[in-house]
């Protein structure tokens, strides 16, 4: 069964809530997707699509616990689950450090979570987000690879003088978080290490194929569609 999925983004392209509509067909169809720039994104998904729900793989109890442990070492606490969002390279916060590292259109997976830091009087408490960007690609042998591309943190608060100390603590904790996430990646691809793929694309949400309408959040979950070579 092939599926035509139409995603209507309510809060921006691949961002926030969207309404999905799947139409299932017995006939196969070629893969096509509509260009960006509209609030509506239509994907024709062939029979042979292999689906990888990144949110389901990454936002596990074990991974949440691992991230929470590293945050505690930085004096912070985890205040969200682990979200996954597809985002173009031009929208990655460290893009301007090395714009030519990828093509502006290339999509990366942004794994991110929120944290809170209690600060001593008279500082305001700190709330922020840490993001780890994953670069997904096929090599010349058409095998799937996932690597950690970079990390970023941002937070509000900490005035008048606690932001610097918090920033230093987060910078110290980031290598540990990055190392743990790097260790998660081989299991993501080991099961399909010898499989060759012809095409790879992002879908918002869990990529469900069941017929009908649904509402999901593109900032919480993203999936990979893979077509066999």
């Amino acid at each position: 069964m092939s599926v035509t999925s139409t995603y209507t983004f309510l809060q921006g392209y691949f961002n926030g809530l969207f309404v999905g509509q799947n139409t299932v067909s017995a006939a196969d169809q070629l893969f096509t997707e509509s260009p960006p720039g509209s609030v509506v994104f239509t994907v024709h998904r062939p029979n042979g699509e292999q689906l990888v729900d990144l949110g389901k793989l990454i936002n596990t109890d074990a991974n949440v616990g691992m991230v929470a442990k590293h945050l505690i070492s930085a004096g912070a606490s985890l205040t969200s689950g682990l979200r996954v969002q597809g985002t173009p390279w031009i929208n990655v916060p460290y893009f301007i450090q090395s714009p030519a590292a990828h093509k502006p259109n290339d999509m990366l997976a942004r794994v991110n979570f929120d944290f809170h830091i209690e600060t001593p009087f008279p500082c305001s408490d700190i709330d922020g987000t840490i993001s780890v960007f994953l670069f997904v690609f096929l090599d010349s042998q058409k095998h799937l690879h996932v690597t950690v591309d970079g990390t970023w943190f941002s937070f509000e608060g900490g005035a008048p003088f606690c932001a610097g100390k918090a920033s230093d603590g987060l910078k110290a904790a980031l290598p540990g978080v990055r190392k743990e996430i790097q260790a998660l990646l081989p299991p993501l691809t080991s099961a399909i290490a010898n499989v060759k793929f012809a095409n790879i694309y992002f879908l918002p949400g869990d990529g469900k194929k069941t017929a009908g309408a649904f509402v999901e959040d593109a900032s919480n979950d993203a999936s990979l569609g893979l077509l066999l070579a």
Partner: protein
Amino acid sequence: MDKDQKLANDIGALLREAGYTGLNVHTDQSGTQLNATRERGGVMVQVSPDMKKASRRTEGGGAEAHTERLDVHEVPAMEGLEQKLRANPGLAKAMGIPASHLKYIM
């Protein structure tokens, strides 16, 4: 010497002269913060180039340092995004793309 740096140094000297110890000086994008203690008391000073931005938002991070060149053949992409952004820069705002990033594709 930068005027604010001299100011921070002078404040630090005054604090030490007044018996404050444990002077901590931290400089980041929001300015320079000084704090020190004396017995059970303390003093805090912030020198900020822009009070409206002082400690409002802090960011940091960057790309991984890859030691080997990746064999990249196919990447998931938003085909046509660059052309769409050139034709309609307003789209960047709708997608949350910072204006400072756009100049690299214009």
